């Protein structure tokens, strides 16, 4: 049985279940950290805000042709942060779009949809070389590629829901100012890629829900031998009484081996501005 969305493309109950599981996983990370903080009765501050980024994206989709498509991109998102003395919860939602060209000036487009909740605990106190924090992050990311010049009828994608360790290094520069370097590496991931051969002449590219549902079908459990990713972020933070803002340089590398290799590299300069709630 299939139910139909308002935008007419079917969303299978299976796909909906996957979304629910992932949302519950995110909430459980938050809940776990929340409980931890309550036991220690620490002062906490929560912030909610927006982030805006621009950068360079680079994709090589070997299912089509093993040459690089790269170009500028923009992203817009929302961010929620809860900070206490011993833990940080950060949840980020981002929508981005990149305009790509290859060495022949053939066009392509990439659309990114990302939710990245992370929870980290302080592992070491402020020392000469800064603080170390460690924890878990869950990255949920869709990279949708429309390689117009080479295939104007089908969508290509890398969707990955990855769970793995994350860590941060904090270095206080002055009161309210600090540098944070963050990394996240998924170890266990649910990954979806298009099939190697496409038999339908035309996919429902004109339907918005197709772009959300199709890349979430056929999710397979993958380990780092088939799917590898790393997310690194270096941020300069400014924490004022009611406002938290930062400017960060972010780099993400994704590689999936099956059914043919896909490489995705994204670099962005991101400005985030959050208000205390």
């Amino acid at each position, binding site marked *: 049985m299939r139910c139909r969305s308002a935008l007419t493309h079917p969303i299978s109950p299976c796909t909906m279940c996957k979304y629910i599981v992932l949302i519950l996983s995110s909430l459980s990370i938050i809940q776990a950290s929340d409980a931890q903080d309550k036991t220690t009765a620490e002062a906490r501050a929560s912030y909610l805000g927006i982030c805006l980024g621009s*950068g*360079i994206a*680079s*994709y*090589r989709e*070997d299912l*089509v*042709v*093993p*040459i*690089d498509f*790269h170009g500028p991109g923009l992203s817009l998102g929302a961010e929620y942060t809860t900070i206490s003395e011993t833990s940080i919860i950060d949840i980020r939602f981002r929508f981005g779009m990149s305009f790509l060209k290859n*060495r*022949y000036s*053939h*066009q392509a487009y990439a659309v990114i949809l990302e939710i990245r909740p992370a929870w980290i605990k302080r592992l070491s106190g402020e020392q*000469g*070389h800064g603080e170390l924090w460690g924890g878990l992050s869950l990255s949920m990311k869709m990279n949708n590629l429309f390689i*117009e*010049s*080479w*295939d*104007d*009828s*089908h969508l290509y994608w890398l969707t990955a829901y990855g769970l793995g360790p994350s860590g941060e290094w904090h*270095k206080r*520069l002055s009161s309210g100012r600090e*540098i944070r370097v963050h990394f996240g590496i998924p170890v266990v991931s649910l990954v979806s890629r298009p099939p190697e*051969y*496409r*038999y*339908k*002449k*035309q*996919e*429902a590219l*004109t*339907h918005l829900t197709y772009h959300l549902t199709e890349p979430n079908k056929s999710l397979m459990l993958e380990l780092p031998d088939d799917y590898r990713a790393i997310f690194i972020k*270096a941020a300069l933070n400014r924490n004022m009484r009611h406002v938290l803002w930062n400017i960060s*340089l972010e*780099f993400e590398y994704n590689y999936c081996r099956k059914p043919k290799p896909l*490489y*995705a*590299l994204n*670099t962005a*300069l991101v400005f985030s501005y959050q208000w205390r709630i």
Partner: protein
Amino acid sequence: MKLFEISVVHGLFPITLLMLLQCAPDAPFKFANSTLPEKLNDGWEIASPEEVGLSRSALDRVYSNFVSEDKYYNAISLLVVKSGTLVFETYCRDLSDRDHYSHIQSVTKSVTSLACGAALSAGYIDSLDQSLYSVFPDKFPADAEKRIVTFRHLLTMTSGISFDNDDFSVELYVDRPRDPIAYILSKPLCANPGARFYYRDCDPHLISYALQRLTGMSEERWVKTRIFDPLGITDYYWDKDHTGVTMGAHGLHLRPRDLAKIGQLALDHGRWQGAQVIDSTWIVMSTQFQTQTDWQTEPHVYDYGYYWWVLPRRQAFTAWGHGGNFIFVSAQKEMVIVMTSLPDVDDDVVGTKLDDFEALISPLLED
């Protein structure tokens, strides 16, 4: 400590630069693989080019253009059959493409033409001037203007039904009207039937449905029985609309060697290995001028037969599928040339039109 902080902050600058200059490395996507066909148990005889009088230097010129990464970007395979023997076969992307079928786009229409010829000679179709209305009146709308559309109109793309090809793909595959045949026939006319050539996917799809109604089996089944089985074509895929009607305009996936068999069948006036598979009169009719087209690239104006493109200046005809899929048949040179390519490219960007293909194979045609 200050030095440490400075080095961290300043260290971000070169890292930033490095990251902004990032890109995934290109890899070769074409390879100079073997051009010698391998003898397989698939009905093809193998010979060297010299044995059949084909110029090695002409083949080398074609090959060097074919494997160039700056031309024919999306090409997959190139095969040359001369005097009934396979003399040249190369796969520039992956050798496994020899054994895997791929979408041949509108080359499907030429197979639909053969299917129609088989139905005509078997007596299922009275004549090409038989109206579609006489075959499936239940699918026609109340207005009478389309009732005069005949098989000949459909085979020459002159039905006049106004249904753009891009819309056809989206509406049939994505929007999925409840009854696709009735939906096609509900479209308005943009010209009187027979008046003007409009290259439309809906016309061959109506032929496919007519064959289904007349023969009692889908076009795919009909073609399997009448054409593919005699030719030994066993590994293929043919797409259907959501009601089960074989797509008459596109959707057929064939292996390159099997495409060459269809070309050889047409070159030999319907005969394959001594057996008459398709009536020779049909082959002659369908591969000669039937209508003037509106497709032209100066100075060439392409003529059209029954779902075959006709090139009188070359004494040749060709099946032509989007993206650079061809079965080119030269009666003058007694040659069949097959090229397959990634099927969904933007023709204007990648350059895979008939003129581009002619430029590629011209050393073989002019030698």
